[in-house]
C-alpha cells in the first residue's frame, strides 16, 4: 500500500454535553475572541443561548451571525466573510448542520487568505490555513466537523463547487448528540442516510486505506443498528449517540479517503432539483450499490457484516444480497421518495440525464468507484432510480 495522507482535527470532544465544553476548548487552543456562525432555525431552537451563556460565564463574548442558508451558496459565504471582517476575531465557532459548517469553513479560509470564494474551488488543493474553525454539529450526518471538504453552490449557475484541503479542516470538533434530540424525523433520516453513504463509499473507494477502512467499519457498526431507532423514536438517547458517533467516524473515513459514485451522481441531482444532499444520496444508494457491488463483492460484504446483516462465516454473495435488500428496506422505512415521488417532472429529468451524467464524470469522483461507469451506464442508473 502506498502512503496515505490523513488529517484530523486536533481536538475532538465526544458525548452528551460536549458542546458545553466550548470555553475549555477555546482556552486549550489559546483563543478568546470568537465569532459564531449559526442558522436561523438553530438559533430559533434555543440551542444557541446556552452556548452563549457558557461563553459569557467564562468572560467570552461572541459576535453572532445567523446569515446562512440551507445548501450553502457563495453569497452566504460572502456574507459570512463580511461579518468576520467587521469584527476582530481569532477563531470562528460553527454551530449547526452541514450547511452552517460548510459555510463557516469556506468563509474562514477566504477571510484569512483573501480573494474570491471561487478561486479556491477544486481541483485546487487548499492546504493554507484559514481562520481556525471550531465545529459543533447539530445533525448526525455530514461529518463536516472532521472533514477537509466543503461544498457551496453558485446560486446564479446552480454549479455545485467542491472545496478541499487542510484549509477546510476544523481545528476542533465538539460532537454532542444531545443537540440532535430535537431533529425532526425527515432530517434524521436524510442526514443519517448521508452518514451511511459516507461510510459505505469510503470503504469501497479505491482511495481507501487500512486506517480509513477501520474508521468506516466503526461508522457502519454504529449506524447500522441505530438509524431506524433514531428515526422512529427521536428521544432514544442511545440511538442518537450512536448515530452521532457514526456520522463523525464516517466523516473521518471519507475525509481521509474519498466518497464515490453515489456522491458524484447525487450532487447533480440535488443541485438541479433542489433536494437535500442526504436525500439525493439515499435515492441513489441502493441502485448505485447494485451497479458497483459485482466489481468488489468482498468489500460490500464487509459493509454488510459490519451493519450486522450477515455473520462472519456467511458467503460474500449472501452478504451483498442482504446489503442491497437492507438499503431498499431502509429507504422504504425512512420514507425516502424516488425522484418521481419527490415531484421531479419526468420531462425535465429525461432531458437532464445526459448533462448530469457528463458533469458527474467530469467531477472525477466516479473514477474512485470500484466499478467505473460511462455516460450511458450513468444514465441507466439514474433511470433505474427514477421510480425505485
Amino acid at each position, binding site marked *: 500500500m*502506498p*502512503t496515505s*495522507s*490523513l*488529517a484530523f482535527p486536533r481536538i475532538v470532544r465526544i458525548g452528551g454535553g460536549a458542546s458545553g465544553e466550548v470555553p475549555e476548548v477555546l482556552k486549550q487552543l489559546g483563543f478568546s475572541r470568537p465569532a459564531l456562525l449559526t442558522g436561523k432555525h438553530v438559533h430559533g431552537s434555543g440551542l444557541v443561548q446556552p452556548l452563549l451563556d457558557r461563553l459569557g460565564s467564562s468572560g467570552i463574548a461572541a459576535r453572532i451571525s445567523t446569515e446562512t442558508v440551507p445548501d450553502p451558496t457563495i453569497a452566504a459565504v460572502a456574507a459570512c466573510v463580511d461579518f468576520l471582517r467587521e469584527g476582530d476575531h481569532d477563531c470562528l465557532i460553527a454551530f449547526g448542520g452541514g450547511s452552517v459548517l460548510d459555510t463557516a469553513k469556506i468563509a474562514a479560509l477566504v477571510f484569512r487568505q483573501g480573494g474570491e470564494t471561487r478561486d479556491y474551488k477544486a481541483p485546487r488543493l487548499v492546504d493554507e490555513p484559514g481562520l481556525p474553525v471550531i465545529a459543533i454539529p447539530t445533525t448526525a450526518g455530514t461529518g463536516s466537523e472532521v472533514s477537509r471538504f466543503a461544498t457551496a453552490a453558485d446560486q446564479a449557475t446552480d454549479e455545485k463547487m467542491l472545496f478541499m484541503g487542510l484549509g477546510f479542516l476544523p481545528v476542533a470538533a465538539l460532537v454532542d448528540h444531545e443537540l440532535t434530540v430535537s431533529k425532526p424525523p425527515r432530517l434524521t433520516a436524510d442526514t443519517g442516510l448521508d452518514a451511511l453513504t459516507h461510510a459505505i463509499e469510503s470503504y469501497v473507494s479505491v482511495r481507501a486505506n487500512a486506517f480509513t477502512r477501520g474508521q468506516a467499519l466503526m461508522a457502519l457498526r454504529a449506524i447500522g443498528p441505530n438509524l431506524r431507532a433514531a428515526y422512529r423514536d427521536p428521544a432514544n438517547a442511545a440511538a442518537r449517540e450512536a448515530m452521532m458517533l457514526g456520522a463523525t467516524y464516517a466523516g473521518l473515513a471519507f475525509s481521509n479517503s474519498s466518497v464515490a459514485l453515489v456522491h458524484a451522481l447525487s450532487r447533480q441531482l440535488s443541485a438541479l432539483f433542489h433536494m437535500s444532499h442526504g436525500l439525493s444520496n439515499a435515492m441513489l444508494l441502493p441502485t448505485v450499490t447494485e451497479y458497483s457491488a459485482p466489481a468488489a463483492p468482498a468489500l460490500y460484504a464487509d459493509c454488510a457484516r459490519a451493519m450486522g446483516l450477515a455473520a462472519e462465516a456467511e458467503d460474500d454473495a449472501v452478504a451483498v444480497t442482504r446489503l442491497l435488500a437492507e438499503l431498499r428496506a431502509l429507504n422504504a422505512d425512512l420514507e425516502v421518495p424516488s425522484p418521481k415521488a419527490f415531484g421531479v417532472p419526468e420531462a425535465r429529468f429525461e432531458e437532464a440525464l445526459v448533462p448530469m451524467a457528463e458533469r458527474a464524470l467530469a467531477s472525477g469522483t466516479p473514477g474512485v468507484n470500484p466499478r467505473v461507469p460511462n455516460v450511458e451506464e450513468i444514465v441507466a442508473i439514474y433511470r433505474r432510480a427514477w421510480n425505485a
Partner: protein
Amino acid sequence: MPLSVAPASILLPRILRIGGGASRQLPDVLSGLGLSRPFLITDRFLWEQGPAQALVERIANAGVATRVYADTVPDPTIADVENCLEQLRRDRHDCVIGLGGGSPIDTAKMVAVLAVHGGPVSRYKVPHDQVQPGLPILAIPTTAGTGSETTRFTIITDGETDEKMLCAGSAYLPIAALVDYELTLSKPRRLSADTGLDALTHAIEAYVSRKANPFSDGMALLAMKAIAPNLRIVCSDPADRRAREAMMLGATQAGMAFSNASVALVHGMSRPIGAHFHVPHGLSNAMLLPFVTAFSAPAAPARYAECARAMGLAEAAERDGVAVARLVDELSALNADLDVPTPRTFGIDPSEWRRLLPNMAEQAIASGSPANNPRTASADQMQDLYMKAWDG
C-alpha cells in the same frame, strides 16, 4: 455500545502519513506545516546504521538544514533529556523530530516542552497536565509498538530514584506522525516481539480501562484485529511485509486508543520493573499481561471477552466465560512462543526482587494507571501478582 457518562476528550495528531515510504514525505510535511528549522532526535544505531542520515539528506535536498542529536538512550533519564535540551539550545529551532523507538520519541516530546517552558523535568510528572504547547513535535516511529507517535504521553526516568515518571498533556501529542512500516523490516526478533506485545497490551488496557469511551473502544478493537493474527508472523518471518504493515497500523491504532482512554494495571506495575531492573518496556508488560488479565477479568468479563473475539479467539456466539479463558490462555501461549522470559529467567536477583516489591507496588499506585483498571488492586494484591509473574 455503552452510553458514555461524560464527554470524551479525544486528541489526534493533525497529520498522519501512513504506509510504505511515509517517512520519505518528511520534507513535504515540514513545508506543509511551515516549519523550516528542525532539530532531529534519534539514537546512535539509527544514525549510523538506520534511516536517520538518509532522511536528513532528503530534508537537506529540500533546502532545510537539520541539526541532529543522536545520543538518546533506552529509558531516557532526566539527565539525558537535559543533555539533549542543551544541544537544542545551541541554535534556533522551530520544531523537534523524534525518530526511533519509544525512547527517542519520548525524549523529543519532553525536550519540545522544556525548550519553551523550561525545567525542572520533575514538575511535569502527573497529575500535572501540560496543555500549553511546546515546540511542534513530529514523530517517525521505527518500531511497531509504543504508539508514542499518536499519544499525549511521555515517560522519563528519574535517575536518582529509578522512578519512571509519566508525563501527560496535549503538549506531548505530535502535530504530525509519519508511520512507515518499511522502517521496521530490519527489527530483530526480540524487538519485534517486545514492541508488538507492548502494542497488544495498549489495545487491551485501553479497551478495559475505566476511561474507555466509544472512540477509544473502536480504535482498540481495530488494533487487536490488526495485531493478533500478525504478531507471531513478524517474529518468525521478519520480511513479511503484509504482517509488518498490519503490526505498524495496529500499534498506531492502539496508541490512538490508549492516548484517548488510558492504560491500566499492567502498565502501572510494569514501569517499576523497567525502572529498577532495566527490563525493556514491552517485555516487562508482557511478563505481567497474562497474570494481570486473569486477575482483572472477573470484574469485566464482557469487555475481556470482546478482546478475545477481536483477536479471533472466540466466535460472537460463544459465551463470555469461554472467550475470557481463551484470552488468558492465548496471552500465556504468546509469551511462550515469543520466548518472553520471566523476571527470574531474565536474570533479576531474587532477593532484590523481593526487597523492592513494596516499593514497586507503591510506585505503581502513585502513577495513577492502576486506578483505571476494571478491578482495583491493593498494594498486597500487586505484590502477589508480581510474585506470580516471577516464575511465569
